[in-house]
């Protein structure tokens, strides 16, 4: 569980990058678009899982940080004319700083205050996106200029695909390192029992604030990735529905495990696409479908699909 990750995990990452470069010429643009959005969701869900699955804290604001990262990236590109490789980290950093500032007062007394404060923050952020017209374009939204990476103009999903694959591989690598580090073990200790963690000399509040900040950073990076695959953003895209979608990915796939989260991202991410072809009134039914899925899986499959599968395999052996 701890120590440096085994070699085969690193090989998976290299394979991901290799696919990123090899796949685009052979796959239709539409499928690349789908894969691109799945990679964005994966970045968001990995960050949410660090907070929820690894440190046992609950927060609602990931769509808002996603929005901050996305607007940040676009605005830095537009106003300061920065290249993507500077604008995206800039946007993500802003998201992390905002996250840090929200987390400090919210972790002072009860652990549930973080969830409550972030729930309110999500609404407040949407209001700011909607009304800071000079910066975000307000309700009219913002057209995203063509991003440039090392002189290359990113105009199609085909060109963006390898970039996103590299970013996701780096995030996966970082996640593996984080959960195996001292900080990762501290997060798990806080998750399993705050009192025992405190008694073992862990600064519980510092761990919570740091976990939340890192988690916001991931969301900000995901927001930057989102700016790369879209040509237009407005406040509507960063609402509660996205937050519940990310939550479903983590919970249904399996909290606290990287393969579990990735399974959740693929299944839940593709569900609307599949349902839209089968069900005309998808819009009408989707809330009910997500609600039932979320409730039933958290009740009867506590460790998600990945936990159920590995549990069954272990049981047979």
């Amino acid at each position, binding site marked *: 569980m701890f120590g440096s990750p085994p070699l085969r995990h690193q090989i998976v990452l290299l394979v991901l990058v290799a696919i990123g470069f090899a796949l685009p010429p052979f796959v239709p643009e539409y499928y690349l678009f789908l894969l691109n959005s799945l990679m964005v969701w994966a970045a968001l869900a990995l960050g949410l899982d660090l907070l929820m699955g690894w440190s046992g804290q609950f927060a609602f604001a990931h769509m808002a940080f996603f929005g901050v990262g996305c607007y940040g990236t676009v605005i830095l590109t537009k106003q300061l004319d920065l290249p993507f490789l500077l604008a995206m980290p800039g946007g993500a950093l802003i998201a992390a700083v905002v996250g840090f500032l929200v987390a400090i*007062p919210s972790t002072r007394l*009860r652990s549930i205050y973080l969830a409550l404060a972030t729930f*309110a923050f999500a609404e*407040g952020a949407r209001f700011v996106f909607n009304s800071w017209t000079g910066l975000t374009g307000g309700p009219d939204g913002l057209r995203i200029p063509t991003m440039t990476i090392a002189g290359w103009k990113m105009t199609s999903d085909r060109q963006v695909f390898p970039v996103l694959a590299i970013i996701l591989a780096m995030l996966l690598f970082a996640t593996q390192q984080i959960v195996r580090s001292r900080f990762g073990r501290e997060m798990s200790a806080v998750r*399993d029992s705050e009192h025992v963690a405190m008694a073992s000399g862990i600064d519980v509040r510092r761990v919570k604030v740091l976990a939340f900040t890192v988690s916001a950073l991931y969301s900000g990076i995901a927001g930057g990735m989102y700016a790369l695959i879209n040509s237009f953003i407005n406040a509507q895209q960063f609402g509660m529905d996205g937050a*519940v979608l990310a939550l479903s990915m983590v919970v249904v796939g399996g909290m606290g495990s990287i393969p579990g989260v990735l399974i959740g991202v693929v299944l839940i991410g593709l569900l609307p696409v599949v349902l839209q072809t089968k069900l005309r009134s998808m819009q009408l039914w989707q809330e*009910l479908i997500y*609600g039932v899925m979320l409730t039933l899986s*958290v009740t009867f499959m506590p460790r998600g699909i990945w936990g159920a599968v590995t549990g069954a395999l272990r049981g047979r052996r």
Partner: protein
Amino acid sequence: MLTLALFQGIASGVITGSVYALLAISIVIVFKSTEVVNFGGGEMLMSGTYLAMMALVAFDMPYVAAFGFVVVGMFVLGISFEAGILRVIAGRGRHGQLTLVALVVATVGLSYILKGVMRLFSYTEQARRLPSLFRGPPVEFGQVLLQRQDLVIVGIAVLVMLLLFAFFQFTFTGKALRAVSQNPRASSLVGIPVKRMRTAVWGGASILAGIAGVLIGAKFPVTPDFGGTVVLLSFAAAIIGGFNSLPGCVLGGVLLGVAQNLVGLYFSSAAIAVTPFVVIMAVLIIRPEGLLSGRSVLRKV
């Protein structure tokens, strides 16, 4: 003229505030007895509005019967959710924070289920208001005009709060519930059926949310998305009270209702969306234990 608008704003803030207070109380009694924050509270409130609409419009009931319909419907909803879902999750044993996360996720799931179910009914397609609770010419207090219905809304809210207070203070079951929230293990040792009590709390909390829904539905047009806005204000109200005090919820609800109206009056009606966040952050920074409690209370091991 401006002061008149101010007084009018304060008066109507007290009215909506009493409804936020009801929902805040519903959320806090659940939190005190189970440590779960009910993120489905807003949708429970919204379900109460639509249950009343169903009773009034489809079944042609009078208002009193509609209240009864809402009470029974919400009670069944609350106890089945607790017994069917939450008890299963909590019964898996101790997994530290993960159990708590799972319980909270279940309430998020509930909020989406309720929203999804309500959307299937045809009268939720557009914003609709319940019929007036009470008709008649407005009443004058000095220069401030108040609708008779608004007085009835506050009256019912206060009546429900008083009944609740009497229940917790004077009945045997109420005292047992307070014991359970203070120390579940000792309560079960003296023979209080802790599990059944938790189910009852969810039933009662759902009824409170449902009644709040009827009251606010008679004043404002409602959509299935309406619950999310109200619950945010109720969370803020509960945090003002330290998330463990019922009088604190009432104070918080009224403060929030008034603050919301004043923000609408002096800034913009859109800025109301940030009011709960600003209030929550201000309380957490300045006085995280809430306005009413004397000292910060740390959880026992």
